[in-house]
């Protein structure tokens, strides 16, 4: 068959046979979106980028909660009269076509007056006429064209986000002052003797002073605050010598111009603050479209459908759910609270909570836990506990989620700075004592000069520029780190613990093998036709691997919930399902998921489903085992044990049937023995473990949606590169150490001038930027060389 791709979304469209306008589509959904676009003269969408779209999902009733005004009111950014503004997060935004179509939204909906995309954050800010268009209709339209917004409890709570732009202001101010002060100090650098300079130097100096005041008291205030905090908790962090240097620079310079001794060091002062802030800004790079702080709130829907005693349905907020309420859970919806199933057939996918890959069937009267996803039509449930008290959400009351990892962490820079500060103070004291004896008039001069020149600007810049650049390089390779500290942490790891389901196994795909009597062609055809009618995930998976057969209408078809399917065609009868259902009682109980087949009441055999492990898994483990202790910890049963022992190095520890709490405790135990643990997980069930570990990496098939709180997010496709990412972090630490050496070298030269009492403003003004710039150049070049090695 000719290979065709969908014109809208780029998926394989060879099998669907749907064509429209001489273009092929993979499904009706994609075709409909194309029809909407071409009917509204928006087909240019496809010219900007080939196959940019996403298949729209079934959303019937999903956004009914947006009818509730109490909920929508909190989602609006602006709501006055008929003008409403709402910001929606749309994970699918990924190319210029997306920007174009979303910003031309008013061609589809005339009520929309303007829409503005922020590509970095993947949000669109829509202004629309609230009297003529409801938020629900807007969201429904976006979903219909494949841009389904992501609305969760998280949006509901945060309300309007406050953007912190202070670093840009400070950087702007410091840069502005730096440039101006440099100009003003130029005449005195050249030391032209004469009446001209004598006459004007005072006004120049006082202008420099004026420009420096806001730099010291506004732009540099973070360093003073941080130094004060550090001293109060008896820590000599890097900001202590910096704050000391800045204040000495400012006081001495002011004293010099007041007493008319010299020009002072205002140029060095403003330059220093400017470079430091530049480093800070560089390190502050964050991935705005990713969230590293997600907890259960971002998984849960905002509203659920409540059924009142008189049978009337209404939307209520998740937080308003009370014990005893009756709720309606639709297909593909998440169960927000612990409850009892009252009506309907439940097939619950607990993979979020437990990591168990297979969905379970529940009968009415069974208990359902929060976090499960309903896969089989509509059910009705009665609430047992409120949101906060449910089993899943209780995990978040663990103390781990309250402690901030960064507070505990001590960076390499701060470790060095302790020794550095003590050494500088010692040198200053020694030099001052010497001069007090030898020539007391120079003593104060030398003391301040030492503190000025030793101000560890270059040291303070080493880490931000190295780590900031590595962060960017890794981001390009689809390994997104929360912040630069994670790199330092990653370099120290000695134990790596992996979750199984979804982490080392590919999420949905599985390997299926058949054991038993060979099926005849007719039997296989019958099997395929039987499976056609079933929506059970195992049926779908099995259906996809069987050969193509002619579609026939079955004479008889019956699905037995939780057991299997029974069907007949032309006197041939087939049963597909669990072992007892097909009439096969075997003492050989397999722990792996299996589907048994019997025809005309003769047992034929079974299809066993094995996990499909990620590519390069065994290779990765082989590389890792030399330097790290490895463990695999899973919420699943031990059905895959044999398979895993074959794949992984023998040293690897394997643990099964671990609950979310167990995982957390296991990591805690290792840490108490001095291990630095890297946890690699994927679902909410790993959230506790990810928070407890020194570095928690979440593996994600789609980085834009669904990853629990963690320190880093790794694209699943890059899983086999994990080893090289850890290696690069280690090399980064080496680079920082080398640049420390380089900056010490500059400090020694500077100290020579300072101690001998020869430090003039010109020398300071040359040495300070020179050392900073060479550090920046050195770290940038070396990190880029490192980045080239990555594939």
């Amino acid at each position, binding site marked *: 068959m000719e290979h065709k791709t969908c014109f809208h979304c780029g998926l394989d469209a060879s099998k669907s046979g749907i064509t429209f306008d001489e273009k092929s589509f993979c499904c009706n959904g994609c075709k409909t979106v194309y029809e909407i676009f071409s009917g509204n*003269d*928006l*087909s*240019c969408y496809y*010219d*900007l980028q080939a196959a940019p779209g996403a298949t729209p999902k079934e959303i019937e009733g999903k956004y009914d909660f947006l009818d509730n005004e109490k909920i929508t009111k909190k989602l609006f950014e602006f709501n006055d009269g008929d003008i409403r503004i709402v910001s929606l997060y749309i994970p699918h935004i990924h190319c*210029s076509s997306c*920007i*174009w179509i979303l*910003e*031309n939204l008013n*061609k589809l909906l005339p009520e929309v007056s303007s829409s503005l*995309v*922020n*590509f*970095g*954050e993947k949000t669109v800010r829509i202004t629309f006429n609230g009297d003529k268009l409801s938020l629900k209709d807007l969201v429904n339209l976006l979903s219909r064209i494949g841009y389904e917004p992501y609305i969760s409890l998280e949006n509901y709570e945060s309300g309007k986000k406050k*953007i912190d*732009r202070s670093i*840009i*202001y400070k950087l*702007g*101010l410091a840069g*502005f002052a730096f440039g*101006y002060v440099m100009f003003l100090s130029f005449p005195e650098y050249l030391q032209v003797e004469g009446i001209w300079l004598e006459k*004007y130097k005072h*006004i120049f100096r006082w*202008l420099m002073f004026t420009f420096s005041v806001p730099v010291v008291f506004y732009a540099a205030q973070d360093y003073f605050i941080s130094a004060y905090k550090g001293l109060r908790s008896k820590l000599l962090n890097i900001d202590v010598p910096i704050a000391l240097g800045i204040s000495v620079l400012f006081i001495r310079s002011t004293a010099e111009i007041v007493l008319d001794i010299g020009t002072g060091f205002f140029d060095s002062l403003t330059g220093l603050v400017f470079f430091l802030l530049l480093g800070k800004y560089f390190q502050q790079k964050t991935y705005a479209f990713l969230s590293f702080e997600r907890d259960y709130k971002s998984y849960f829907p905002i509203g659920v459908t409540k059924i009142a005693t008189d049978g009337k349905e209404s939307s209520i907020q998740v937080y308003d759910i009370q014990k005893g309420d009756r709720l309606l859970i639709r297909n593909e919806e998440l169960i927000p609270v612990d409850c009892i199933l009252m009506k309907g057939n439940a097939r619950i996918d607990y993979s979020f909570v437990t990591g168990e890959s297979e969905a379970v069937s529940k009968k009415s009267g069974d208990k359902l836990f929060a976090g499960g996803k309903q896969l089989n039509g509509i059910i009705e449930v009665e609430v047992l506990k409120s949101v906060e008290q449910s089993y899943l959400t209780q995990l978040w009351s663990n103390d781990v989620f309250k402690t901030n990892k960064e507070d505990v962490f001590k960076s390499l820079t701060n470790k060095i700075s302790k020794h550095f500060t003590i050494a500088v103070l010692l040198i200053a004291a020694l030099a001052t004592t010497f001069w007090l004896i030898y020539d007391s008039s120079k003593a104060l001069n030398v003391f301040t000069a030492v503190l000025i020149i030793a101000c560890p600007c270059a040291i303070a810049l080493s880490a931000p520029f190295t780590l900031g650049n590595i962060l960017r390089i890794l981001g390009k390779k689809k390994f997104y780190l929360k912040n630069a500290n994670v790199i330092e942490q990653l370099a120290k790891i000695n134990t790596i613990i992996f979750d199984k389901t979804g982490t080392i196994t590919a999420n949905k795909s599985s390997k299926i093998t058949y054991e038993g009597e060979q099926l005849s062609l007719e039997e296989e055809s019958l099997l395929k036709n039987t499976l056609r009618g079933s929506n059970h995930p195992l049926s779908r998976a099995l259906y996809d691997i069987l050969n193509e057969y002619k579609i026939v209408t079955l004479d008889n078809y019956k699905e037995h919930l939780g057991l299997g399917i029974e069907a007949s065609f032309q006197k041939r009868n087939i049963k597909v399902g669990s072992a007892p259902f097909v009439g096969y009682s075997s003492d050989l109980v397999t722990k792996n998921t299996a589907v048994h087949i019997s025809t005309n009441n003769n047992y034929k055999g079974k299809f066993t489903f094995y996990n499909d492990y990620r590519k390069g898994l065994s290779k990765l483990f082989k590389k890792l085992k030399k330097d790290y202790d490895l463990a695999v910890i899973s919420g699943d049963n031990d059905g895959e044990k044999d398979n895993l022992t074959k794949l992984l190095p023998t040293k690897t520890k394997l643990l099964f049937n671990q609950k979310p709490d167990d995982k957390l405790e296991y990591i805690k135990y290792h840490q108490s023995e001095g291990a630095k643990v890297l946890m690699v997980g994927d679902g909410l069930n790993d959230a506790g473990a990810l928070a407890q570990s020194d570095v928690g990496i979440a593996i994600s098939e789609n980085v834009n949606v669904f990853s629990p709180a963690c320190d880093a997010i790794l694209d699943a496709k890059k899983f086999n590169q994990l080893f090289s990412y850890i290696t690069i972090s280690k090399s980064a630490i080496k680079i920082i150490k080398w640049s420390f050496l380089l900056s010490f070298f500059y400090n020694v030269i500077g100290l020579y001038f300072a101690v001998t009492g020869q430090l003039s403003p010109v020398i300071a003004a040359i040495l300070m930027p020179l050392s900073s710039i060479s550090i920046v150049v050195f770290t940038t070049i070396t990190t880029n060389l490192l980045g080239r090695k990555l594939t």
Partner: protein
Amino acid sequence: MSVIYVLLAISIAVAVVFFIAFIIAVKKGQYDDSYTHSVRMLFEDEIIKEKSKK
């Protein structure tokens, strides 16, 4: 009065004007999104004109 004072005053005034412009730009959020604009400026009249049969 020497011309140098005039020049100093002018230079500072010009610099301060630009600095204020910078602050206003930041405040209005022009630095919040540094990517989308680079794409947006390349769009023009991509919308196909009304077809005649309508």
